[in-house]
């Protein structure tokens, strides 16, 4: 029993990391109707920025002189995430905006290419960037209790994910800009007709999405203790799968999707003999089946195609 429980905790942790990228995907898809495929790489970029801020610039140590460690961690994470927010804006301007109103394939390819470029830039310009980098321990590592091995760090990751989703919920449902985002994602033409500044909504979505991806990158790197320049591709792919399983465009579905994929992976590798090598196969197979037989996602509603 305790084995199942501990595996479930592993799965929940993994699911949290997947769902944050999934949320990013869904946010962009909802507003822009495009898949920003470099989301995973953007998240990893944040992790590298934070690593650089801490271990090269020495910001953490400097902040620690004046502030409690918890606060300096928060500051650094916000700095890193803001950086990716800005990066996302730049990406929007450079590789997404030129393809507005064109074939959907083009922004897909251009974002895949920019993901590769981002990865390579890290690999080339970060000192020894092609080697895996140890991620600074900004979250306390000690065990909370011996039971089922919940560590402080894991707890923080889960709480942070929930908090982020709650904040996103409040932002989208309670603020004017958030409501505009919702309006645009439901019906762009109508939203523009009622006078919503579409361009502004898009910019804010990208800023926000980049910020969430940044925090996702931070959490995933903290969970793994390591960042690799090429981690973003697999991470992004799994995040995309999470978004699809949850229903593309549905921000909350992405969390369910992430957890589902994580559970499949963990349980296949833990309880199927020789299953470790097939964990990813099982996860992707599930995604394929989902798309084929329930493309609207776990909690989406089926829509009838209008002729």
């Amino acid at each position, binding site marked *: 029993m305790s084995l199942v429980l501990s*595996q479930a905790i*592993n799965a929940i942790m993994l699911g949290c990391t997947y769902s944050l990228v999934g949320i990013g995907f869904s946010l962009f898809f909802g507003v822009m109707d495009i898949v920003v495929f470099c989301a995973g790489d953007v998240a990893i970029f944040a992790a590298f920025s934070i690593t650089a801020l801490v271990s090269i610039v020495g910001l953490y140590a400097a902040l620690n002189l004046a502030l409690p460690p918890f606060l300096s961690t928060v500051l650094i994470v916000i700095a890193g995430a803001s950086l990716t927010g800005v990066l996302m804006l730049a990406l929007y301007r450079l590789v997404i905006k030129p393809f507005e109103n064109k074939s959907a394939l083009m922004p897909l390819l251009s974002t895949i290419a920019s993901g590769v470029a981002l990865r390579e830039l890290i690999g080339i310009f970060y000192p020894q960037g092609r*080697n895996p980098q*140890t991620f600074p321990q900004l979250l306390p590592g000690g065990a909370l209790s011996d039971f089922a*091995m919940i560590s402080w760090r894991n707890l923080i990751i889960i709480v942070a994910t929930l908090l982020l989703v709650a904040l996103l919920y409040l932002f989208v449902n309670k603020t004017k800009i958030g409501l505009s985002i919702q309006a645009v994602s439901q019906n762009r033409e109508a939203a523009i007709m009622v006078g919503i500044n579409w361009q502004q909504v898009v910019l804010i979505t990208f800023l926000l999405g980049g910020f969430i991806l940044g925090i996702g990158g931070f959490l995933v790197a903290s*969970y793994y*203790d*390591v960042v690799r320049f090429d981690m973003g591709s697999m991470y992004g792919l799994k995040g995309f799968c999470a978004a699809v399983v949850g229903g593309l465009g549905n921000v909350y579905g992405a969390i369910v999707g992430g957890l589902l994929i994580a559970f499949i992976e963990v349980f296949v590798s833990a309880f199927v003999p020789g299953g470790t*090598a097939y964990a990813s196969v099982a996860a992707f197979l599930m995604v394929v089946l989902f798309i084929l037989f329930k493309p609207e996602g776990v909690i989406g509603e089926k829509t009838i195609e209008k002729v």
Partner: protein
Amino acid sequence: MLKRRTIKFLVVFMLLALAFTLIAGCGSGSKGKEESKATDSKTVKVAFLGPLTGPNAMQGVGARNAFKLAIDQANASGKLPFKIEVVDLDDASNPGTGASVAQKAVADQDVVAASGHWNSPVAEATIPIFKSAGVPLVIWGAIRPTLTSKENYPYITRVCPTQQQENLPLANFVINELGRKKWAIISDTTTYGKSNTEAWKNEVKKYPGAEVVSIDEIQVGQNDFRPILSKIKAANVDGIYFGGVVMEAALVRRQMVELGMKDMLMVGISGIVDDKFIETAGKEAAEGIIATKPGKSISKLEGGKAFEEAYQKAGFKEPYGAYGPYAYDAANIIVEALKQVGPDRNKLVDAIAKISYNGLLGVTSFNEVGQTTNVASTIYVVEDGKWVDWDSSKYKSGERKLPGSK
């Protein structure tokens, strides 16, 4: 009717194109001639192939640096009648890419010898190319046993030991001397990992009472091993054998500690003997990890100190890694052969195959299939954040106890 302008335009264009062809053709032609003239008196090229980008870049770049160091030293010594130039080519751990760069290397007539590869599949792909071009290839890091064989001799030689040669002493040590019998294997899905799994399973079988309880295969680049480790924890084994490379090994150890498995022994082979392992796993977590590495430890080798100092002095950013010394010796063997017979591919093939060279790792000579006969191995243990020779460690003397000791 065509417009006059269009025709004129086309004619100009064709002339330009022709001119370009001529320039390009003559350019490469004359360049080729100059260089071949130069061969006699000045520059000889030696190719280095390895993963300089991609997931295994760490290994490849370290070995490249060590290789270059040896060549630079040879050039600086002034004992050669020509200068040696290193052509470093990236195989990106990809057989297709490897084959392509190997073609490129052998197409250049000035390249007289090559040393290459950390990945066995890449070596498999390039060996036929080097063989058919008659260029000797000294393998510095690929450890699949079948790479050196009767068919490939004398073109292909190898300075590093094979996987079988690596796993044998380790199994003997941990099972016989330490008495650990129940094993869980974690290894990656690369050739390296899979043949380690194979080799370790076979070694363990040889000892009565010893058994392998579980085998888990992971991907290189995977970061989360908690599901596997949770499972192994429940299975209550005497130790984990890790048949992969540095980064995954470090993460496995780190997550073992996180899951409360600090008191479980972990062993590995040369792929993890690297300071990066301790750095990433954390000094405390890494304590008491055992690994074997062929050859004697650098510090015990005669030229070890000098090598390390020279490497430091040359100002390479990256550590030389587990296979740096082999690449270093591979380079020196090629230099030695060049000294003996001069820059001629055919003569070099035989010279290298028959060489007996006393270098950093000791005396290297090749057996009838081109495999090095220099296979001394050393057991290492991590002690206070350093890889220490078992024989001189506090564990051997009994001052400290290994994880899981009763």
